[in-house]
């Protein structure tokens, strides 16, 4: 029982990361209706931005890890990723706006491969894993022994942090999308981009903003994973990005709470498969979930079905 609870905690903290990345997929899909294949690589760039900013932020605070330094690093990585996302959209996806969706998908694959391989070059980041600086003391939280058997559970500060930050960012995001003018414009573009432009919405601006927002969430995810698992490499985003995409589809693509639910579910499923079945089937089962969802409920758990118009 304790082991199961422990696995559940592990799964939720892993799922929170998936959720952050899945939010980016879902938002971009919402406005542009295509899979931003390079999203996982933006997440990787976020981690490397932290690698660059971490030591500098620590120096500001006398070399001691702390929450303010970590917050600075987080904001820096989010800004860098937002910029990267906007640039990618501007250079590679905007010229293809009117082209078939598949051209955009192929371009996105190209962008993803380009980022991964350029970053593997020894003049950029190099192919080897690198150590992420300690910006927060990641320790286990003591559970008082009066809790009985629950005292055997281990929860680390980074696990709590990941969950809190993800929840905070989700709240912020729903505020932006549901209660601001920009958010209203985003929803309008997502609902019908032609009509929204007729109503005076600057579609290009809104799409750039959405890309920036989604990419900054990936950047945040990059920092949060690196705090937990301080070994980063240029290929870290491939599999994680794909799984986050599965999470987005599971929750219902284009649906914000759905992405979070999907992320948490995938995290828990993966952890349980590893803990109780066999780690060799971890990836196969995640993809199996995707295939099952797409066959039986293509709109996802929280998504609404859409009818194709001819």
């Amino acid at each position, binding site marked *: 029982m304790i082991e199961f609870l422990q696995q559940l905690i592990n799964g939720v903290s892993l799922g929170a990361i998936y959720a952050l990345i899945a939010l980016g997929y879902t938002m971009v899909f919402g406005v542009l209706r295509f899979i931003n294949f390079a999203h996982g690589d933006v997440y990787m760039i976020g981690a490397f931005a932290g690698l660059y900013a971490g030591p500098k932020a620590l120096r500001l605070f006398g070399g001691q890890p702390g929450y303010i330094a970590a917050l600075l690093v987080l904001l820096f990585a989010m800004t860098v990723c937002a910029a990267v996302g906007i640039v990618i959209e501007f250079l590679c996806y905007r010229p293809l706006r009117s*082209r078939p*969706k598949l051209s955009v998908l192929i371009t996105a694959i*190209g962008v993803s491969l*380009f980022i991964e391989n350029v970053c593997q070059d020894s003049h950029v980041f190099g192919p080897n894993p690198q150590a992420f600086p300690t910006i927060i003391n990641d320790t286990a939280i003591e559970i008082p022994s009066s809790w009985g058997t629950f005292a055997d559970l281990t929860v680390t500060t980074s696990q709590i942090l990941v969950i809190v930050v993800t929840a905070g960012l989700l709240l912020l995001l729903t505020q932006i999308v549901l209660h601001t003018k920009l958010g209203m414009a985003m929803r309008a573009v997502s609902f019908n981009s032609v009509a929204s432009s007729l109503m005076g919405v600057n579609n290009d601006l809104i799409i750039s903003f959405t890309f920036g927002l989604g990419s900054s969430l990936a950047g945040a995810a990059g920092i949060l994973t690196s705090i937990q698992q301080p070994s980063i490499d240029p290929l870290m985003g491939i599999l994680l990005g794909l799984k986050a995409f599965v999470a987005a589809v599971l929750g219902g693509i284009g649906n914000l709470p759905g992405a979070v639910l999907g992320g948490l579910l995938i995290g828990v499923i993966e952890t349980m498969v590893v803990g109780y079945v*066999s780690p*060799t089937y971890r990836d*196969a089962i995640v993809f199996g979930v995707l295939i099952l969802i*797409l066959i039986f409920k293509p709109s996802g758990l929280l998504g609404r079905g859409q009818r194709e118009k001819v």
Partner: protein
Amino acid sequence: MRAKLILLGALALCAALSQITPSVNPYYYDVLIGIGINIMLAAGLNLVNGYTGQFSLGHAGFMAVGAYLASAMSLAIQFPYIDWPDWSGPRWLWAPKGIWLLLAAPLRLLEWMHNSLVFLAHGLPAQAQFLCVLLYGGAAAALAGLVVGIPSLRLRGDYLAIVTLGFNEIIRGVIQNAEPLGAQRGLGGMMRHTDFLWTFGSAAVCVYVVLALVNSTYGRGFLAVRDDEVAAEAMGINTTKYKVLAFVIGAFFAGIAGGLYAHFKQYIHPDGFNFLRSVDIVVMVILGGMGNTAGVCVAAVILTILPEVLRRVGIENRMIPYSLLLIVLMLSRPQGLFGGLGVARKKGPAIAK
């Protein structure tokens, strides 16, 4: 009729050329065989991605199925006295008992079929054996194509791409756990049967089949599915049938190509059939122009030689120029280098909406 004559001519040419090839420098020969294998892969994928407009990102998975099963069969013929591990035994699957029970019956059937084929192929001369081995690999891959194709049919565009990618990973995952197929060690020890005639003969047949299909009633069906699936269905075309057919034929030739690859390199490893290998083939199809078989073949030739040229000029990471090429092509010439020159010229954009 003319096409058949051209095919016969091409086969005769291959036979004639194969008389000289043994004297070719082995390094160039290696690249040459690579070209033939890539032509088959790209022409087969072109049927799915180009003509039928179903974007598949898992072609290397089918190649893996062909390579592994062809190798398993030729090894069983080559070493009949070795006691091969029990195929359907529960151990190699490493799965919990429930799953194993589900899989046991079909696996027993496959094992029995595999063993009887090996037994039947035993008395044949070496070249005929190799033909059986290749066809077996192709058939297995076609079966995999059917299994992947049917559930994927409900999906379009991006979703299909991701699902085929997922299937590619699942196929690799199964091989990585399959003890009789060498698991993570890779599989080696196959005889080097593949030569110039086998490779380019198969490539010629593959190109012929694809072209003949496209120019037949079936071809119109493929194109109709690509250009407007809803309209095609409204006109009474069984879109399901065409999509599955394209998948199965593409997978069949990928399987043959896998068999040829395995019997040329004499060692195969699951990592050689990953997502990047699939992207390689997709780049060939896109560079050549989706739905333009001649262009795709030329692209396969160019993209097989390109890494060797890059090696010479000191660019080791070929994926950087590859990915740039992909982006620039999509931005400036989405119909591919040779697109708009071939069969698809009558129709506007070469890529389905």
